[in-house]
């Protein structure tokens, strides 16, 4: 079906308990937070979450949706330690596979190419292999080098937030850094994309920006327009992150420290309610881009 438009609820309706779900973006940047919020409104559980983690991972852990996390870090940058992830880890409630940032994208690439693993030196000499049960392989060539076999990070679904898409899934992705969104899309059996702007036919609107088509539409299963949908993470060039919102979210992990008491503030009964509570799309659009 070439018309891939869906609602956020349709997308979450295609997911099921126990799935492995990849989430694009990086820390507090380019996160498909509106889709994550929709997932938080659902009854889904026992998920394995694969992410360069930020509040997406923290919220899903806080809400008890997560069985296992595959991560290299979970951080909000200016708030280095993601407070809700930290709580879940220190309570011992999560299974984890902790890997290096580079191994992580290597695992996505292995999955994208249908390989069982890709070899790497990374992880040797650290605790990662022993803790993660990672195996080694030996080069069959004259060098005979021992390498870690980074297992494919196969995803049942990936959630990604992009700048533009048409209803066929021709995406355009801007911003100074696109992180590993391309590889989440290719590592997943199904990729669901939310976008700041949905158009009918990309070629009629933005043909001059076709080189920003980060991944081809064969990797896109569903599309939904959710402008402001990365809030409180950043979505350059449209808007920066909302550090005040992250601070409030972070503070709530200490007081009251109970997700069920604050979920309504950070998730809302609907996306419209959520956006209203933070001052609407205009308030999101006015957030300045971060300076590093």
């Amino acid at each position, binding site marked *: 079906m070439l018309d891939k438009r869906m609602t956020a609820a349709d997308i979450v309706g295609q997911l099921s308990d126990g799935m492995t779900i990849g989430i694009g973006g990086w820390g507090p940047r380019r996160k498909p937070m509106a889709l994550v919020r929709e997932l938080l409104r659902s009854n889904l559980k026992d998920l394995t979450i694969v992410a360069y983690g930020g509040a997406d991972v923290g919220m899903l852990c806080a809400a008890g949706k997560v069985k296992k996390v595959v991560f290299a*870090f979970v951080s909000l940058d200016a708030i280095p330690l993601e407070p809700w*992830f930290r709580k879940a880890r220190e309570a011992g409630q999560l299974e984890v596979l902790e890997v290096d940032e*580079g191994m992580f994208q290597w695992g996505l690439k292995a999955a994208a190419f249908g390989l069982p693993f890709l070899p790497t030196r990374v992880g040797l*000499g*650290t605790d990662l292999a022993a803790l993660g049960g990672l195996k080694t392989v030996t080069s069959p060539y004259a060098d005979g080098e021992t390498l870690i076999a980074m297992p494919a990070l196969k995803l049942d679904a990936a959630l990604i937030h992009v700048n533009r898409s048409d209803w066929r899934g021709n995406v355009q992705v801007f911003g100074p*850094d696109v*992180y590993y969104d391309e590889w989440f899309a290719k590592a997943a059996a199904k990729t669901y994309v939310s976008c700041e702007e949905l158009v009918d036919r990309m070629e009629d609107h933005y043909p001059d920006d076709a080189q920003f088509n980060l991944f081809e539409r064969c990797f896109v299963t569903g599309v939904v327009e959710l402008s402001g949908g990365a809030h409180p993470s950043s979505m350059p060039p449209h808007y920066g992150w909302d550090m005040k919102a992250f601070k409030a979210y972070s503070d709530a992990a200490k007081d009251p420290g109970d997700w069920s008491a604050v979920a309504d503030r950070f998730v809302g009964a609907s996306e419209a309610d959520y956006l209203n509570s933070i001052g609407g799309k205009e308030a999101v659009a006015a957030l300045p881009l971060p300076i590093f």
Partner: protein
Amino acid sequence: MTDVTLAELCIYAASEAFRGNGEIVATGVGPVPRLGAGLAKLTHTPELMMTDGECYLVEQPVPLGPRNYDDRKKAGYLPFSRFFDSAVWTGRRHAMVTPTQIDRFGQINLSQLGGTHKQPKTQMLGVRGFPGNTIYHPNSFFFPSHTTRVFVEGEVDMVSGVGYNPAKRIAGGNYSGVALKKIITNLCVMDFGGTDNAVRVVSLHPGVTFQDVQAATGFPLEKGDLVETPLPDADALAIIAQLDPHNIRASVIKDNPPAQRVS
């Protein structure tokens, strides 16, 4: 020169770690390492490459703190999306970072403290890119507070970066890229030039003794030449001030002490 701060002395020492490194990406994480890399590029090692902290390569190091988003002058592009391909896995980088713990082997920890991996007592960032950084390219370290909590007895709680511990090295692996360079702290400068890459004190900050350093370290240290860490000259101080117009460096070391320790 009595008004030189300890932070400025550390920045100057950090810049020395990047001296003559060639055409590689100098990454300083945190104010002192970042200012050190910038100072190195603007003085003795202009061939260094560096980013604006986001994704663009700049030939003019970007000042710390608030400024306009477009103030950076973009000369090249090195986003995370190709960071491993271009910088890390090709060995074309020298990073200076601040882990939570370091041990006698130069093994570092940024992941967790205490407890078990299933249930850590304190969850920190995660290993981030440390495993790849340490097996592929040179690394140095900066610690604003030199204590036995940082320089631990025994081994770090979770080995997040490769060191010189033979027991941790899986046989047959290629460790030729492991290159731990300098450790700069509020007390001294050290390197890994001791016996079997043991940590060795190479210079002491003014007014600090070897005994002071040893007392703050959880494992035995070796002695290098033990010269006095040099103070930055007026030119270096001017560049540091220009790269840090909001004086963020004053907040790095507790109470922002002078370079000359008063006992």
